C-alpha cells in the first residue's frame, strides 16, 4: 500500500524506524500543549486600544464599520448602511439566537430571510463569532446557525460583532474556540478567517475588489464590553 511505502521512504531518509514510544510521548505532549510561538507586540495593548486596532486594520483592508451602543441600535445601523449604498432591503440572515434577539421589527422595511446563502442574494447578515485585532480579521466558524454560504454568495456582507468578542491575536481566538468545543470534534467543518472584501490582482497585477466573494464587507460593532469602551 502507498501509505506504507511513503512512511517507509520517509523513515529510510531519516535513518530510523517508526518513532520510539518515548519520542511519540513527547510529540503528543507538544500537540496537546499547542504552545504559542512568538506573538507580535502590536496586539498586546489594553482592551480599548485592541478594539480600535481591529477597526483600523479592518478599514485598511477596505472593510467598513458602524459602532453602536447596543443590540437595539443594530437595525437602524443596517438600514442606514443599506440606504447609503443604494442597496435593497431584502437580506439573507444567519439563524443565530443573538441575531434573533435584535429588535428588527422596528425597521419594518427590512425583509429578512433566515437560512443559508443563495445565489440571488444581494445582501447577507452574518453572526460575528470573533474579530482579531492584529490584522482586522473576522473569524467565522461554520455552525448550523452560522452558515458558510452567507460569507460568499451575496454582493454585500454585513457582520454583527460584539466588542467583547474582539481578540488581540489569533492564538486567543483558538483557545476560545477550543473551550467552546470541549467534548465535541475539535473543529467545526469550516472556519473562514475573513480580512476585508474579496479581491484579485490577477489582471495586470492591479487590485480590484469583488472577485468572487462579496465586494463590500461591513461590520456593525456592538459596544457590549465596558472594558473595551473608549474613555
Amino acid at each position, binding site marked *: 500500500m502507498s501509505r506504507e511505502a511513503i512512511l517507509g521512504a520517509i523513515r529510510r*531518509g531519516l535513518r530510523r524506524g517508526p518513532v520510539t514510544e518515548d519520542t511519540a510521548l513527547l510529540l503528543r505532549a507538544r*500537540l496537546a500543549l499547542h504552545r504559542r510561538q512568538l506573538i507580535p507586540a502590536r496586539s498586546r495593548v489594553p482592551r480599548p486600544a485592541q478594539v480600535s486596532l481591529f477597526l483600523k486594520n479592518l478599514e485598511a483592508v477596505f472593510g467598513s464599520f458602524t459602532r453602536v451602543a447596543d443590540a437595539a441600535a443594530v437595525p437602524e445601523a443596517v438600514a442606514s448602511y443599506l440606504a447609503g449604498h443604494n442597496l435593497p432591503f431584502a437580506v439573507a440572515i444567519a439563524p443565530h439566537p443573538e441575531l434573533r434577539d435584535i429588535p428588527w421589527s422596528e425597521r419594518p422595511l427590512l425583509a429578512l430571510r433566515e437560512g443559508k446563502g443563495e445565489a440571488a442574494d444581494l445582501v447577507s447578515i452574518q453572526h460575528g463569532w470573533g474579530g482579531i485585532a492584529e490584522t482586522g480579521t473576522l473569524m467565522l466558524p*461554520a*455552525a448550523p446557525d452560522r452558515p*458558510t454560504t452567507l460569507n460568499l454568495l451575496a454582493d454585500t456582507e454585513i457582520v454583527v460583532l460584539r466588542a467583547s468578542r474582539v481578540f488581540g491575536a489569533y492564538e486567543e481566538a483558538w483557545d476560545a474556540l477550543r473551550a467552546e468545543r470541549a467534548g465535541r470534534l475539535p473543529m467545526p467543518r*469550516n472556519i473562514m478567517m*475573513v*480580512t476585508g472584501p*474579496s479581491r484579485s490582482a490577477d489582471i495586470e497585477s492591479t487590485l480590484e475588489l469583488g472577485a*468572487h466573494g462579496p465586494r463590500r464587507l461591513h461590520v456593525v460593532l456592538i459596544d457590549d464590553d465596558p472594558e473595551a469602551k473608549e474613555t
Partner: protein
Amino acid sequence: MNVDSPDFKRRAKRALDNASLQSALTATRGAFAARRAAAVAALPEFEALRDAAKAIKDHTLAHLDFYLETYAANVERAGGHVHWCSTADEAREAVLAICRGVDARTVTKGKSMISEEIALNDYLEANGVQPVETDLGEYILQLRHEAPSHIIAPAIHLNREDWERAFRKAHTDRPSDRRFAERRDIMVEAREELREKFLVADVGITGANFLIAETGSSVIVTNEGNGDLTQTLPKVHIVLASIEKVVPTLEDTTSLLRVLARSATGQDFSVYTTFSTGPRQEGDLDGPGEYHVILLDNGRSAMVGSEFQDMLRCIRCSACMNHCPVFFAVGGHSYGWVYPGPMGSVLTPALVGIDRAGNLPNASTFCGKCESVCPVKIPLPNLMRHWREREFERHLTPPVVRANLALWAWFARHPSVYRLATRAAARAMALASRGRGAFRRLPFAGGWTGGRDFPAPEGETFFARYARQQRQQGRNPR
C-alpha cells in the same frame, strides 16, 4: 504536465525576444518586492518569525511520519478520507474514482500547484469529467490552454488585451461589440461566467497551504473567495496536498500564516484563510457531504534526509521568484515545468530528475536575494550549487561546458600560466575594442551580447591591477 526544462535556454531566448511578455514583466517587476518590504517594515518581529517558521518546519520534517499518521487519523475522526498516493498516476486515479462515485460531470477547481504537477485537468477531461478553473488567473489560462507562469500570480505574463481577446473568443453568447472600458469589466464578466459553474459543479477540488496534524484540518489561503465557493457548494470536496504540507498545531499554522501573506503579496493576512475539517456536521445548512484528501508524495519522501531536505520547508509564498532577476528577465514559462524561479530550480530536478531538468540550477546569477527573502530560510543558491555538482558528476553537463570547466580548472591549478594567459587576453581585447571600451559582439558569447554589451578590459587583468595597487599602498601581494 510535460517537462520542458531541458529546453530552458531556447525558451529563455524566445522569452527575451517576446515583446508582449517583456512588457507584462516590466509592468510588475519591483511591485512585489516593494509590497513585501512595506509589510515587513511594519512588523518588527518579522525576522524572529522567520526563525520560528523555519524551526516549526524543521521539527515537522524530522518527525514527518508521525505527523502524517496523526493528521490522517484526525481527518478520519472528523469523517473525512485520506488517500495516500506515491505517484501522480495514483493521485489522478484516486480523484477520478471519487468523481465517478458521485457521477460527476463538472468539477470546479481552486488554485492548486499539485493539480498542475499531476496534470489533472487533461486526465479528467479525457475521462469525461469537465474541470473548471475558478481562480481568475487560472481561468484565463484554461481558456488559452496555457500553463501558469508564477505560483501565486499565474497570469502574470498576460496583458489586458490578452484577457479581452480570450473572453471574446470564449464567451460567445455575449454581445460581440461589448466594451471592456476598465479592468473591472473583465473581472465582472469572469465573476458572472464562473458563478454559473460554481452552482452546478458536482465536485470541488482545492489545494492546501497547510495540513494540521492536531485537528485534521486543511487550510487554503486566497484573496478572491473562489476556493471557498469551490469547496462549499458541491457535494464533494477533494483536497490535493503533498506530504510536506503538514504542520503540528493551530498555533504553528498561525506562525507560518504570519509570514506567508507578507512574503507573498505584502498583505498582513490574505482575505480568506479557511480551515476545512471533514464533511458537513450535524445540523449544518451547507458544506459538502464528502471530504477527501489526496496525500501525494511524488518524489518528496526521497528528499527527506538528503541534502535537499531543506527545500521541503517551502510554503510556496513566491518571494524567491518575485525578487529574482532571472525570473523577471525570462518569465515563468521558460522554466519548463510547474515550479518556476529559484524554488523551481531546486525542486524540479528533485521531483522529475536532474537528467530532465539539468539546465534549471544554472538559471541563477547567485545574487542571493532569494535566500534573503525566503520566510523559511531555504538556502536556495546553495541547493542549486548542489545540483550543479551532481549534474557535473553524472556527466550531464554539455561537453562544451565540461571542456571549458576542465580547461579553467587546469589554469586555476597553474596560477602563473593563468596570469600570463589572462594578461595576454586582456591586452588583445583592449586593442580589439579599439578604445570603445565595450564589445557589441564577441565570438562564443552571443548569449551575453544579445542582451547587453560586454565591457572590454582596459588592458590590465584584475590580478595585475590588484598587485599594482597593493604595491602602491606599500603592501605585499601574495
